[in-house]
């Protein structure tokens, strides 16, 4: 077997607590499908037949019991549960399943929505016999207004500095602004080997990694590494250029140990590989006297997507953007066949209506997503909004640019602009709610503006 897929679905969604305090992040509906469906669909399209899904008990329970959460995938899902309160990082989770990992792994995060051609990433991994191969994408500005935020907030997230070589494929440098004290520090050994480096900051890390099996074994020995993105990847990128003067690189040692455990055949194979490289007149760089790859055994590659969809749904803004673009990723009809839609309503072309909905007369739904089993009564105007499952919207409401979570009830005549209404909340009739998060169970006496 060549690659095993591992889907990390145990994250808490710490950057969008408003949405995830009630629904776990992997099951948030995006385009009326649970978020976890998108990476699973990606893996299925590419040809994987089984996936190891690392998730929490809560998610596992909801997947198996809740009828609204239908995963619709033909692959075999091997669900591994970890404790929610254990605060495990992604690397810890990988260490947890070390016994199940038999070959190289492809680690995907559950919040990745992309239509990337995965073969580009895997081809880099195969052709150069790389230790790490990852996917990144040029970041797009989010254009939608985020409910609860006045104006466009500057992303407080720290930038990532990614250094690639002249071809744009080899990963030379990776650091997050948070880890750098004053400036970007690049070692001379890197500059000597790769005099031309392009440093990019506007890239989104898709959290899709191809890792060699020896890396997983290395993680098992080094328990101090707990996050793949935060610690493991920068470590591997640095290790490409570290000198092995006194002691060999730790990863090399694991390479060598593994090779010793196999019989003599592996050592002969190494010789043959060496002979091939010697006789082949190819070099990945030119201008200096060193052999291909500068004789280094550890190589990290990155594939940077120029066009195409690639989103990580870990903030509210990304969630809203993803809802806009998700319908492009699958061919299902916009209006679910089981939805009851009356003829006198106006449904825009870019809206999605979920299954078993009831849309009454004289409603207007534009650029919105209506979840499963939602009831929308007469004369409702929904624009630019995301309505999740089981919501009831009474007559005459006007919902604009908002996110209404599951099982909420919006009273008659309410006017909601750029708000986020939490799960199972009630908005009293005739409320005017503007730019707020409504997730506390405070009932308002209304007819006055409620703003943040």
């Amino acid at each position, binding site marked *: *077997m*060549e*690659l*095993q*897929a591992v889907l990390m679905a145990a994250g808490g969604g710490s950057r969008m607590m408003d949405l995830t305090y009630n629904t776990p992040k992997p099951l948030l509906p995006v385009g009326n499908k649970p978020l976890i469906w998108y990476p699973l669909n990606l893996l299925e399209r*590419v*040809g*994987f*037949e089984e996936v190891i899904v690392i998730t929490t008990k809560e998610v596992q329970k909801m997947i198996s019991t809740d009828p609204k959460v239908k995963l619709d995938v033909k692959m075999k899902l091997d669900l591994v549960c970890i404790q929610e309160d254990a605060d495990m990082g992604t690397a810890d989770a990988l260490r947890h399943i070390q016994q199940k990992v038999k070959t190289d792994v*492809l680690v995907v995060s559950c919040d990745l929505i992309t239509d990337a*051609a*995965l*073969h580009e990433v*895997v*081809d880099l991994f*195969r*052709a*150069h*016999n790389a230790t790490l191969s990852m996917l990144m994408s040029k970041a797009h500005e989010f254009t939608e207004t985020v409910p609860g935020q006045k104006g466009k907030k500057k992303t407080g997230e720290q930038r990532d500095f990614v250094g690639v070589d002249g071809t744009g494929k080899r990963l030379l440098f990776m650091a997050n602004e948070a880890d750098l004290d004053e400036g970007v520090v690049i070692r001379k050994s890197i500059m000597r080997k790769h005099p031309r480096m392009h440093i990019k900051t506007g890239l989104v890390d898709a959290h899709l990694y191809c890792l060699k099996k020896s890396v997983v074994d290395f993680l098992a020995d080094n328990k101090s590494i707990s996050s793949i993105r935060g610690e493991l990847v920068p470590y591997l990128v640095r290790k490409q250029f570290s000198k092995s003067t006194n002691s060999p690189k730790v990863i090399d040692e694991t390479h060598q140990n593994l090779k010793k455990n196999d019989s003599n*055949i592996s050592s*002969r*194979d190494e010789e*043959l*590989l060496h*002979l*091939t*490289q*010697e*006789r*082949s*007149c*190819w*070099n990945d760089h*030119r201008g200096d*006297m060193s052999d291909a790859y500068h004789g280094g055994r550890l190589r990290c590659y990155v594939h940077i997507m120029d066009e195409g969809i690639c989103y990580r749904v870990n903030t509210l803004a990304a969630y809203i953007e993803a809802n806009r673009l998700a319908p492009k990723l699958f061919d299902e009809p916009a209006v679910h066949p089981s939805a009851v839609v009356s003829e006198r309503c106006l449904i825009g072309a870019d809206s999605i209506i979920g299954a078993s909905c009831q849309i009454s007369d004289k409603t207007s739904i534009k650029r919105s997503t209506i979840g499963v089993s939602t009831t929308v009564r007469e004369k409702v105007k929904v624009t630019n909004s995301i309505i999740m499952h089981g919501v009831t919207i009474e007559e005459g409401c006007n919902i604009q640019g908002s996110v209404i979570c599951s099982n909420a009830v919006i009273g008659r005549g309410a006017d909601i602009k750029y708000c986020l209404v939490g799960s199972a909340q009630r908005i009293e009739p005739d409320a005017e709610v503007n730019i707020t998060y409504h997730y506390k169970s405070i009932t308002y006496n209304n007819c006055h503006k409620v703003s943040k």
Partner: protein
Amino acid sequence: MADCGAADGPVKKDDIVRAKNEGKELTKEEKQRLRKEKKHQKKQKDEKRPSERAKEKKPVAPSQPVATQPPTQKAPTVLPASAPIPVPASGAPSHSSPAPSPADKPAKSRAEQKAERRARQDADRASKQQSCFSSSKTKAPPSELNPVVKRLPEHVQVDDPAVVKRLAKKLERQQIPLRSDYGYKVSLFSHLHQYSRKAPLTQQLSIPSTVIHPSIVRLGLQYSQGIVVGSNARSVALLHAFKQVIRDYTTPPNEELARDLVNKLKPYISFLNQCRPLSASMGNAIKYIKKEISNIPSQFKEEEAKTKLQKCIDCYINENVVLAAKAISKYAIKKISDGDVILVYGCSSLVNHILCEAYDKSRKFRVIVVDSRPRLEGREALRRLVQRGISCTYVLISALSYILPEVSKVFLGAHALLANGYVMSRVGTSQIALVARTFNVPVLVCCETYKFCERVQTDSFVSNELDDPDDLMVTRKGKTQLENWHDVSSLGLLNLVYDVTPPDFVDLVITDLGMIPCTSVPVVLRVKNLEQ
């Protein structure tokens, strides 16, 4: 003879037709007969009139005479498939080929009998002619007993849609994706494949590749991206990948390793061929490995067989690549004297090895490396030689005639040596040899014997390889001149990989068997075949 054949004909045909109609399994003999019939009819179809060959089930006027006779006596004359009753050649011990065509309607009408008689007369005439002339027509289909007539390989018949369809069907059967050609092909080379490097074959494969072994997928990628380049490197990498395949192989129940493993390797070879056309050295390596696998005695257990095969592969590489290089260096060093100026072209692993060995043996010489676009492989050769300490000069091939007066010898590597003494090597080699001959500079070709192949070629058009035409685009100062070459309808980019050098330009071939003239290549081949 003919009568009994004819009499049997309808009966057997009846059986087959009945069996087919009832959907029952045909027996083994029937299947064999059917297969032979089909093959025969296809051959007739190909060389005779291409049109009215109706399908087997369609009835056509039976008065169609048989056109040309197959030359050999043994090959039976077969009526067009439309006529219900085929007639075997008279006097031919019918080796069950004149099987009844599985056409419907076994009823013998008068017209059909007439046709039968006419065919018999034609067969008699043909056999008489055959005994007079005894020269086989080259276009005739080879019978089972005359295997010397070879077919054109499929990869040089890309402009023939029938061949392309056949290839597509074969690939579909083996579950290998078909790689599509790219860009406008220059008309003189439109019979060859031309692929784009940006469209690798892996985008049509599933990612954890199950149909094809992962090491073969990796190898195919490395071939198509140019990471493993050079005849020796490609063969060694191929054998290395085969070792992995053999190691991970388990014999399915009720199968023999000797036969099943060969069948398993066939789709892998097709896949590698799609990624990049196989080289002659790879072809020979594959022949060797197939022979070794089929010669595994059936009483060997699986583990023993696998270990034996791994050892054979190691042995093959050791003998033909490593030791051969040592032997060739020994001979070649005798030809290098102090004060020599040696010209090399491109990056040949063997020539680099020779020069490094000679330098280690303290010969004093300097090297001129000639390079050419678009591959610019000479830069890598230059790096390796300079790293050793050899003093080198670097020129492009356009400067060849200016630099040749300084040169005392030319060392060239070869991709393959053909049976008529021609040297197939990187494009540009024949130029070097030609100009060197004009300047009376000796040209020495270094080539291991496992690269000798039985093909015969006198020009570089018939069989060659077309590389990605986009490699010819170059960006200088931010401008790429040929960026929109697709839009110019009269423009075609040609990126040839190989060319053939006639033996008149080559003075000596240094092989691991010794130093031989170019014309002795067929002798070496004959000796090798005898050994096997």
